[in-house]
C-alpha cells in the first residue's frame, strides 16, 4: 500500500489567485493512500523542498504528488529533493495546476474543481509508479555540421577551437555557400569573398576540421551523444588526393555549353569545372550530366591533359559512416523560384534579374568581369546599349505575401541589399537613374538606417513607396515598368533597361529531408523550429541537434555568424561532458504476449529493438519456439512509438505504461 504526500503550491498568486489551494489540499486528504496533504507558498523554494524531504521521512512516504507548474519547469527539482530524502526520484509526479489550470481559467470555482481533478489524476498515476534507475551513455566527442556556408564554417571553426573534431558535410563541390556569390556586404561595403575566403582557408587548414565537400548526409541514427551518420561522397570522377587544382582540364574540356550555376546560368562552364578560383577544396569535378566521356565513352580529353593523372571515370559514390555526439543543421537558403510572378516578365526578358543574379553581374568573377552589363547584351558588350541607364528595383517579390504565390514572412535582408545595390550602381555609374519601389524600408540593425539614408540622401536613389504592377518588354528591347506612387498618388510608367527583383528567400530544398533524418521539427515555412523561441534559440527540440544560420529563420551575415557561434557554444557544452544520464522511461516488451510481428521494430527510430527465437513452455507442457522482441535499454529513448504500434500490447513504456495512462484517464472521467 502506498503512502502518498500531496503538496499544493501557491506559486505566489500565480496559482493561488485562481485556484483555492487550501481547498485542493483539503480535498486530497480524502483520496486513497494519501497520508499527508498541505499547501505552501513556493514549493520550489528551499523551504518547499525541505518540507517535501521532512514529510517523506516523518510520514514514511512512498510517493509524492506536487501540484504546481509544468513538469518542464521543476520536475527535476522535486525529483532531486525526493531522492535526497531517500525515495526513488521517479516516485514523484507533478500535477500541472498552473499552465494547464490557473493561467487559463478565470473562475475560481471551476479552476479549483479542475485542480482537484488534476491532482487526483497524478495520485492515480503515482499509485502505479515503480522505482526506476537511469543508465548512463557515453558521449562521442565529434560534431557533424550539415552545410558548409558561412554559418556551418563558423560553427565548425568555433567547435574546433575548443579542441573537438568536426566534420563539415557540404553538398556543393566547394564550401563557402551563398556568400561566395555575393559581391559586397552591407553596411560596410567590404568585398564578400575578401572576408569569406580566409575563413574557408581556416577550415581547410584546421587539423580538427574535416571537410566532406560534394557529399550528402543520407542517414542518421542514434541519439544525443551517440549519433551515427552515413555520408555519401558523390563521385567527382577526379581523385581529390591527386588533383592539384591547376585548372588545365577546365580549359581544355570540349564540352563548353554547361550552364554555370555559380553565375546562376548567366554564362557557361565546361563539363569538368572548379566553381571559382578560391574554391575549397580546390579540385576539379566532372559534371556527369554533361560529360561526353561518361555519357558516350568517347572523349577523355581531361584525362589526357591531366599531368597528375587524377581523372578517374570509374569513380563510384562512396558511403562513409561516422559517429557523432552532436549535429548542427546549417542548411541555409535559396532565393524562391519566381515563375509565379509573371507580371514582372522574368521569363520574358533577360533584363529582368533577381538580386542574386545582379550580384554576379557586378562581381569581378562574374560573367561580365565586374562591369554592369544588361544580360541581353552579355555577348555584345561593346554595344552602347549594353550599359543600363535606368534601373528599377522591386522590393518584396514573394516576401510578406498575402496570397499563395509567395511567403508570408519578411525575408529580412532585401531592404538592405537593395540599398547596397542602388548605392554601388550610383557610385560606379553616376549617370544611371535608379528607382526602388518599396512597401516599407526595414532597417533595424547597427548602422543600417544610416546606410539606407546615405543611399537616398548622398547617392540620390529614387525611393518610391508603392508597388510595381506590371513589367512589359517593349519592341526596342527596353522594359515598360508600370507602377504606382502611393505618396503622390500617381500612376508611373518608367522606361527601364534593367529590372531587379528583390526575391524572397526560403530554406534550402534539402532542409526538410535533413530535418526528417534528424527528427528535428520544422515550421510551416520549412524553417527549423527552436527548442524555445526566446530562451533556447539555437537548439532544436531534439536533444543533440543544433541550429545555425538561415535554416532557423531569415538572417543577414552578422546575425548568422553570431548564431553560428552560439550553436557552437552549445555543442561544446555537450561534447565537454564524458557521460550523459539517460532516461529510465524506456520501452519494455512482455515476451509472453509478443507476437513477433516486427511492427515495433519497423517504427523504432533508434534501432533499439531486435528479434530472436526463444523457447517457451506451453500450457500443455510442450515447448514452442517463438520469435520475440527485446529492447536495448541503452539505445531506447522512450519515444513510445513502439507501444502504439504493438497490436497485442506487449510493448509498454516504463513510467508511462498503458495502465498508468488509463488510470489517469479514469481519474479524470470519474
Amino acid at each position, binding site marked *: 500500500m502506498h503512502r502518498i504526500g500531496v503538496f499544493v503550491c501557491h506559486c505566489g498568486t500565480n496559482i493561488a489567485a485562481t485556484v483555492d489551494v487550501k481547498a485542493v489540499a483539503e480535498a486530497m486528504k480524502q483520496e486513497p493512500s494519501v497520508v499527508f496533504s498541505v499547501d505552501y507558498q513556493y514549493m520550489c523554494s528551499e523551504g518547499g523542498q525541505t518540507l517535501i524531504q521532512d514529510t517523506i521521512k516523518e510520514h514514511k512516504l512512498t510517493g509524492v504528488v506536487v501540484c504546481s507548474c509544468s513538469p518542464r519547469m521543476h520536475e527535476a527539482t522535486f525529483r532531486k529533493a525526493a531522492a535526497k530524502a531517500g525515495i526513488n526520484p521517479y516516485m514523484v509526479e507533478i500535477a500541472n495546476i498552473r499552465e494547464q489550470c490557473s493561467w487559463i481559467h478565470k473562475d475560481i470555482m471551476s479552476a479549483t474543481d479542475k485542480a482537484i481533478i488534476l491532482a487526483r489524476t497524478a495520485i492515480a498515476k503515482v499509485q502505479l509508479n515503480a522505482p526506476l534507475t537511469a543508465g548512463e551513455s557515453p558521449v562521442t566527442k565529434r560534431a557533424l555540421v550539415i552545410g558548409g556556408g558561412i554559418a556551418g564554417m563558423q560553427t565548425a571553426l568555433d567547435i574546433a577551437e575548443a579542441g573537438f573534431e568536426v566534420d563539415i558535410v557540404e553538398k556543393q563541390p566547394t564550401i563557402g555557400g551563398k556568400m561566395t556569390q555575393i559581391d559586397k556586404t552591407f553596411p560596410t561595403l567590404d568585398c564578400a569573398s575578401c572576408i569569406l575566403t580566409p575563413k574557408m582557408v581556416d577550415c581547410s587548414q584546421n587539423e580538427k576540421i574535416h571537410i566532406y565537400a560534394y557529399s550528402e548526409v543520407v542517414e542518421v541514427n542514434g541519439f544525443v551523444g551517440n549519433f551515427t551518420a552515413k555520408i555519401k561522397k558523390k563521385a567527382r570522377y577526379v581523385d581529390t588526393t591527386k588533383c592539384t587544382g591547376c585548372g588545365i582540364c577546365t580549359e581544355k574540356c570540349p564540352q563548353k555549353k554547361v550552364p554555370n550555376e555559380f553565375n546562376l546560368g548567366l554564362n557557361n562552364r565546361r563539363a569538368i569545372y572548379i566553381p571559382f578560383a578560391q574554391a575549397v577544396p580546390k579540385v576539379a569535378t566532372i559534371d556527369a550530366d554533361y560529360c561526353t566521356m561518361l555519357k558516350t565513352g568517347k572523349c577523355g580529353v581531361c584525362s589526357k591533359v591531366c599531368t597528375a593523372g587524377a581523372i578517374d571515370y570509374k569513380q563510384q559514390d562512396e558511403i562513409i559512416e561516422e559517429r557523432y555526439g552532436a549535429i548542427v543543421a546549417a542548411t541555409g537558403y535559396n532565393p524562391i523560384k519566381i515563375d509565379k510572378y509573371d507580371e514582372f516578365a522574368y521569363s520574358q526578358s533577360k533584363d529582368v534579374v533577381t538580386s542574386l543574379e545582379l550580384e554576379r553581374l557586378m562581381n569581378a568573377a562574374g560573367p561580365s568581369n565586374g562591369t554592369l552589363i544588361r544580360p541581353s547584351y552579355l555577348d555584345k558588350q561593346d554595344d552602347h546599349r549594353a550599359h543600363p541607364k535606368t534601373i528599377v528595383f522591386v522590393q518584396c517579390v514573394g516576401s510578406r505575401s498575402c496570397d499563395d504565390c509567395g511567403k508570408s514572412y519578411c525575408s529580412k535582408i532585401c531592404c538592405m541589399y537593395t540599398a547596397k545595390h542602388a548605392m554601388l550602381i550610383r557610385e560606379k555609374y553616376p549617370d544611371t537613374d535608379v528607382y526602388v519601389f518599396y512597401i516599407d524600408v526595414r532597417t533595424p540593425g547597427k548602422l543600417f538606417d544610416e546606410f539606407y539614408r546615405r543611399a537616398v540622401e548622398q547617392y540620390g536613389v529614387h525611393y518610391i513607396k508603392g508597388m510595381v504592377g506590371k513589367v512589359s518588354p517593349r519592341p526596342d528591347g527596353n522594359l515598360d515598368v508600370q507602377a504606382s506612387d502611393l505618396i503622390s498618388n500617381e500612376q508611373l510608367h518608367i522606361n527601364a533597361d534593367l529590372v531587379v527583383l528583390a526575391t524572397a528567400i526560403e530554406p534550402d530544398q534539402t532542409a526538410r529531408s535533413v530535418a526528417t533524418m534528424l527528427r528535428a521539427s520544422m515550421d510551416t515555412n520549412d524553417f527549423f523550429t527552436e527548442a524555445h523561441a526566446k530562451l533556447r534559440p539555437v537548439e532544436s527540440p531534439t536533444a543533440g541537434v543544433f541550429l545555425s544560420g538561415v535554416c532557423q529563420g531569415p538572417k543577414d551575415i552578422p546575425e548568422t555568424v553570431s548564431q553560428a557561434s552560439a550553436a557552437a557554444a552549445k555543442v561544446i557544452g555537450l561534447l565537454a561532458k564524458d557521460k550523459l544520464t539517460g532516461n529510465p522511461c524506456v520501452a519494455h516488451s512482455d515476451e509472453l504476449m509478443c507476437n513477433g*510481428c516486427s511492427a515495433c521494430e519497423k517504427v523504432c527510430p533508434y534501432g533499439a529493438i531486435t*528479434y530472436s527465437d526463444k523457447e517457451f513452455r506451453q500450457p500443455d507442457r510442450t515447448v514452442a519456439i517463438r520469435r520475440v522482441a527485446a529492447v536495448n535499454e541503452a539505445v531506447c529513448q522512450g519515444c513510445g512509438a513502439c507501444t502504439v504500434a504493438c497490436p*497485442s*500490447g506487449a510493448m509498454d513504456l516504463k513510467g508511462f505504461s498503458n*495502465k498508468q495512462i488509463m488510470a489517469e484517464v479514469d481519474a479524470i472521467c470519474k
Partner: protein
Amino acid sequence: MQEAVIKRAKELLADGSVNRVVGWKAGEFAYDTTPAVFTSAEELDAGFIYNDFCAPNLSKYIIKESRKEGKLLVFLKPCDTYSFNQLVKEHRIIRENVYIIAVPCTGKVDVDTVKSKGIKGITGMTSDGENVTITTLYGEKTMPKSETLGDKCRTCKSKKHVIFDEIIGDDGEVNTDGARFELVEKLEMMTPDERYDFWRNELSKCIRCNACRNVCPACTCESCVFDNPNSGIQQRAATDSFEENMFHLIRSFHVAGRCTDCGECTRVCPQNIPLHLINRKYIKDINEFYGDYQAGSDLETRAPLNDYTFDDCEPSIVYKRGGNE
C-alpha cells in the same frame, strides 16, 4: 474442380511432399463448410469438398499448422492468399513449411443473403456454378448464384492469387472498380448523427460471441488485449455497453493497415452486423491519405501506418476534410 483438387492433394500426400492437407469439409448444414485437416487419401475421399460454399478463409489456421512437424498443403482462394501473405509478412506463418495450391473462386454463396430474399426453412443447397438450388421445408427454389453472394463477394476485390506454389485453373485479375467502397461512401454522406444512429443500431445487436475476432486472420495475437487483465480493456462477455461503444472500434483499430478486407468478420457474425464496413472505411482512408495500399498484396511493401515517407499527408488533411467541425 473438386475432383482435380482431391487428385492433386492425393499425389502430393503419396509422394511425401506433404504430410497433411488443409481444406474444407461439410459442416452441420450443406451450405455450412468447415476448415479441416486431412492426413490420408481415404480421409480426402471421405470428407474433402471444394464448391461454391467453401467460404472460410484457411490462412489463419496455417499459423499453428505451419509450426508443426513436416510440410503441409493448403488450398487458397484469391482472397485467402492476401491474408496468407500478410501473416507471412508478420512472421506468423512459417512459409517454408507450406505448399500452396491456388484454387479459383467465382464468389461463394452466402446463406444470410439467401435468407434475406425471404427464403425460410432451408434444408439444403446445391450450386451448378450458375444457379443455386435451395431445398426448403416448403419446396424447392432456384435463383441465380449472383443473387446469393454476400457484400464480400459481390464487390470482390481480386480474383488474382498473390502467393502460391502451383495453380489449378487460370489466375484472375485484381478488381479496381472501387465498388467495394460504395457502402462506405453512403455512410460518409450521412450526417454524424445519422451515422452514429446507424452504428449504434448495428453494434447494439452484438452478443459478444467473439466469432469476428476468432475468425479474423489479422486477430492472431498470442494474447488478445480483450483477454489481458493488464490491458485495461479486458472484457469477455456482453455485460454492459462495451460492445456497442468500444469493442468493435478497438478491434478495428488493432487490425487497421493489416486488414486485407477478406470479409470473414461479417460472414461469421450471427447478428449480421456489417463489421467489414468499419475496416473498409479505414482502408479507403488509408488509400486516400497515403496512396493505394492493399494489405497482403506482397511481402515487401511497408504498411502506411507503420511507415513514414516524405509524401505522407500532413495532419491538416483532417481539417481539410472537415474534421474540425
